[in-house]
Each structure stands twice: as C-alpha cells, then as structure tokens.
C-alpha cells in the first residue's frame, strides 16, 4: 500500500470531463485512447477471487454480458456528466429503458407517464408493460396536477422526456420530482434530446436518467446503444420497493440497497437486469460513443445554433406552421427553456407542412441535402414524416396526444453550414402545393 500522489478535490468543467471522466491512462500499456477490450471473458487469479467477483464482494470482471472495461469507461463518463452515482450501458436506448423499469417494477404496479413520447417508448410502455401486468396512465406532460391526480396506491414511478419527441414539450422536471417525492416515488427522465450538456435532470431532483446514446452522444449515426444513470439519492428502503430492498431470490438473498447503499439500485440493474435481459453493449460501440462524447459540447453548441436559425426561418415561411422548437421566443415553453435549457433547446423539432399528408411527402421527396431516415442526433441533418414511419403504429388519438398531425415533419438539425440547410428546405417547400 505505497503512498501515491494524492488527487485534489477540484470541480473540473464539463468540457474537461467529457474528455477524461471514466478513463485513466491504461496502467499496463500507457495507451492514451480508451483501449477496445474485445473479449467475452476474463481470466481469474484464483478460485477465491472468482468467487468474490460473482458474490459482488470485490469489483472484478467476469463476463462481458455483465461488464467490460471499455463499456465501463463509457458508463462512468455519462454518469459523471449527468452528476449521477454510476451508469449501466445497454445494447439500445429501448433496452436501457426496459431494464431501468424492470429493476424497480413488479406485476400489479402502476406507472404514470407523459403521453408525448418517442413512438418506440409509447409501444414499450403500453404493450410490454401490460404483458408484465403493469398498469399505465398517460398524462399531459405540461400539467403537473394531472400527474398528481393519476397517482394510485400501487404507483411506482413517473416517466417523461426532457424534450418530448417530436412535439418539443419541455418537462417541468423539478415540479414533477416534487410530486413524485411527496409519495416517495422516483422520477425517471429520458434526457436523450437534451444531452447532459444542455440539461442535467439529476440537478433538478430526477432520480434516474435514461439515454439513447445512439443519438447526440454517439453523434455520428454509427451505433445503437443506451445507458441508465441513477442519482444514488433515492431511498429504495422506504417500504414501497421490496423488489429492490428485500433479500433477492435472484441473487442468493442479497439485499441490494442495504448492502450497497447509494449504489444498490445500479448494482441490481447490472447484476440482475442486465444479466437476465442480456442486452449488453459491445465494446466497439462503447468506443464509438466515447469518441462522440469527446466533442459533445462542441457539437451541441452548433446543433442548437443551427436549429434556432432553421426554426426562425420556418416560422416566417407561409407553407410551414406549428413550429415546435421550444427555443423560439414565441414558444409556450420559453420559461421552462430559460430554467432547464439555458444553453439551447436541443436540435429536434417538428412543423406542419402545408397540404397535410401529401404536402409532407412532397417536401421529403424534394430535399437533397437533408437525409430522409428514421434517426435523430446525427451530425448530419435528418428529416422524416412521423405519421408514416416512427409513429406509424399509433392510432389517431395517440398521435394527437404525441403532438403529431398528418402533415407533421420532424427535423433533426445537424452541424452543416446553416445557409445550406435553409436553402434546401426553402427549395423543397417551393414544390409543396
């Protein structure tokens, strides 16, 4: 136990942490970049060490379905940027969301969720949770009192998106956290569209943050992945969450919250939920996400600058209406943007194209620089018609609740030269009848 150079308690800035958090130079080789540990498994030193790793008495690598040193750098970096106790990565954002919920829910429980969510999340909450005999109530994300009224004795979580997809509603995180915490329930926030650079929900008392890393974190449209971050401050032993606090039959009677304290939920999320769902993130994708994170703040600055300009252009265009960019001064979310998103309101929003469904499709047929595809958060600008693609499985009522009409077009504004983006939309809109 030699005395080594002690580290000062300095509060490093976001830009420093997006480059360094989670990684120290590799002790064995000195490699400065994060090594890609492309291995399924890890040689144990001896039987006692192997047992200690599986018993969770010691932090040790066992199998890459449960942990991997490259993935761990990514997990710690996102957790650090979000201000959480730790992170667990998954093979997709949807898998991360399922695991975050399954870790704290049991059959017979109830969840209150914003109705304005990504279509894939709507499907997951509505259909997958029902198969698990878990009840769900959709509420208007803009009305905290509606969330309070939806509470039942078996309610176990509030769920919402920082910036709703694609309607651009901004969640009043602090107000919803207050209502959830009055009932000793966790608030779960999908922070994909804001990224930790624009908003850190834990600082506003959210308990669990979820990301689709596929989007702005990766930033280059190369990889699918997700991550769950927990604040580490929620009292899982409050009597409402026996599934987290009581001896676990799935882990030889371990009481995760009693034994691991502020790390108990995360430990259970990894050692049970990731183990059993099997949706592990591969090390190469984790490496690509780390490359993305290194430039997150730089890209987000340009994304919001371009999105602001594109939204302002559309606001004056006669063939565009209902521009949902919450960063517009005319947006009803302007006060919430000032509070939660002072550096910018993201880069994904929608507008209604003149001519309804036909008009929207005509616009998409005529853009030449914007890419017509089903993703957001790429450095390249993306465009899609939700009613015929991402939100296709939803009925008219659900579409309306998610803020989508037949002519709605969703944009993900990239980091190209902004004049080129506006030029392309302008020439394509000229084709719309």
């Amino acid at each position: 136990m030699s005395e080594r150079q002690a580290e000062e308690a300095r509060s490093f800035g976001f830009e420093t942490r997006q480059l360094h958090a989670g990684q120290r130079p590799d002790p064995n080789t000195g490699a400065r970049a994060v090594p890609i540990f492309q291995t399924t498994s890890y040689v144990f030193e001896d039987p006692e060490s192997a047992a200690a790793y599986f018993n969770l008495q010691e932090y040790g690598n066992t199998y890459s379905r449960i942990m991997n040193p490259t993935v761990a750098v990514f997990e710690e970096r996102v957790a650090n940027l979000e201000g959480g106790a730790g992170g667990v990565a998954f093979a997709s954002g949807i898998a991360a969301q399922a695991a975050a919920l399954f870790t704290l829910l049991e059959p017979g429980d109830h969840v209150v969720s914003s109705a304005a969510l990504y279509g894939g999340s709507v499907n997951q909450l509505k259909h997958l949770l029902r198969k698990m005999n878990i009840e769900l109530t959709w509420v208007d994300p803009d009305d905290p009192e509606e969330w309070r009224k939806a509470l039942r004795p078996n309610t176990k979580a509030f769920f919402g998106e920082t910036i709703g997809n694609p309607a651009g509603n901004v969640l009043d995180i602090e107000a919803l956290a207050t209502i959830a915490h009055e009932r000793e329930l966790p608030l779960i926030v999908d922070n994909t569209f804001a990224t930790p650079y624009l908003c850190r929900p834990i600082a506003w008392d959210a308990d669990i943050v979820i990301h689709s890393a596929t989007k702005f974190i990766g930033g280059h449209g190369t990889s699918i992945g997700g991550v769950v971050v927990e604040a580490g401050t929620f009292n899982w032993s409050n009597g409402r969450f026996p599934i987290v606090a009581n001896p676990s039959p799935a882990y030889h009677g371990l009481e995760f919250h009693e034994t691991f304290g502020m790390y108990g939920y995360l430990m259970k999320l990894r050692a049970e939920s990731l183990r059993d769902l099997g949706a592990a993130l591969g090390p190469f994708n984790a490496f690509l996400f780390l490359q993305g994170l290194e430039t997150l703040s730089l890209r987000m600055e340009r994304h919001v600058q371009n999105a602001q300009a594109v939204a302002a252009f559309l606001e004056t265009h006669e063939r565009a209406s209902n521009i949902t960019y919450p960063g517009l001064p005319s947006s009803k979310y302007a006060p919430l943007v000032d509070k939660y998103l002072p550096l910018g309101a993201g880069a994904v929003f929608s507008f209604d194209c003149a001519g309804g469904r036909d008009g929207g499709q005509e616009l998409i047929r005529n853009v030449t620089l914007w890419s017509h595809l089903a993703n957001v958060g790429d450095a390249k600008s993306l465009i899609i018609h939700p009613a015929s693609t991402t939100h296709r499985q939803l009925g008219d009522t659900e579409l309306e609740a998610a803020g989508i009409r037949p002519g709605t077009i969703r944009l993900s504004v990239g980091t190209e030269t902004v004049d080129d983006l506006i030029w392309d939309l302008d020439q394509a809109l000229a084709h719309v009848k």
Partner: protein
Amino acid sequence: MNWLERYQDPLTIQRVLHTARTIAIVGLSANELRASNFVGYYLKRHGYEVIPVNPREPEILGGASYPSLLDVPIPVDVVNVFRAPDALPAIARDAVAIKAGALWCQFGVINDEAARIAEGGGVPVIMDRCLKVEHARYVGRMHWLGFNTGRITSIRKGLQ
C-alpha cells in the same frame, strides 16, 4: 448537512487509505450478506489487517472478535464504525483512548458530538463515507462497474 464536508476531505481519505495497515471494524457482522461483512472481506483481500469488534461473536472473517476497542491488543490505524449514530460518542471516546489513527464512520453513521470528541482528542474523522467505496475509488477497481469515481487524471500509475 454542510458541516459534514469537513469530514469528507479527499486528501485525508487518500492519506488514510495509503498509510493504514490495521483496521478495527466496530459492529462487524458475521453474516456474510451484511454490508459490514462485505467491507471487512474486501479490506482483508486488499492487504489490511481487519480486527473485528463485536461482543456477540468469538470470531469473524477468520479473526478473533473483541468486545470493545479497549480490548484490542495491537495499535489500531483506523476505527471503522457500522453502528447506530447514537452509539458513536462512546466509540469516539474509546478511539481517543487507544490513540487510533483515524475514526471512519460509514454511510449514515453521523453524529457531530462524536466528531468533536474524536477531533478534540487528536483523532482525524471521516464521516458518512464507505471505506470500501473510497478504497475502490482511489486504489481499486470501482471504475470497472461504471460507478462515478469523480477522478480526473492523466497520470499513469500502477498495474491493476
């Protein structure tokens, strides 16, 4: 709870981790599913001499258990406490009496009177921090499980 930050200083924590050799765990449980047992097992694995202090057990983790700190026959570098907060002042007095190197109180083991007693007697205090977590943060492998160590450094050191 800002007064607690005074007892969570990273430089003190790192000094204790790097210089301690003997750790007396007050309230160490013989039940291997309890947090104290996890911590004791971990510290033994990492080369510390763990001294159980628990009047209800003759032996824990392979070592003789002593009824109180005053009964421990060797110098104690760290007194690590897993007891209710109101038991802490008496433990702090014992820690001063045996000239312990530090008083380390686990998560939730918070008592300002005890902190004053220990400090007044020349025993540095760490409070509301887990000895296993802090060891894993600065010396061990906490980062392998995606936990936020908060560490930022470009210095290459040590084999893992």
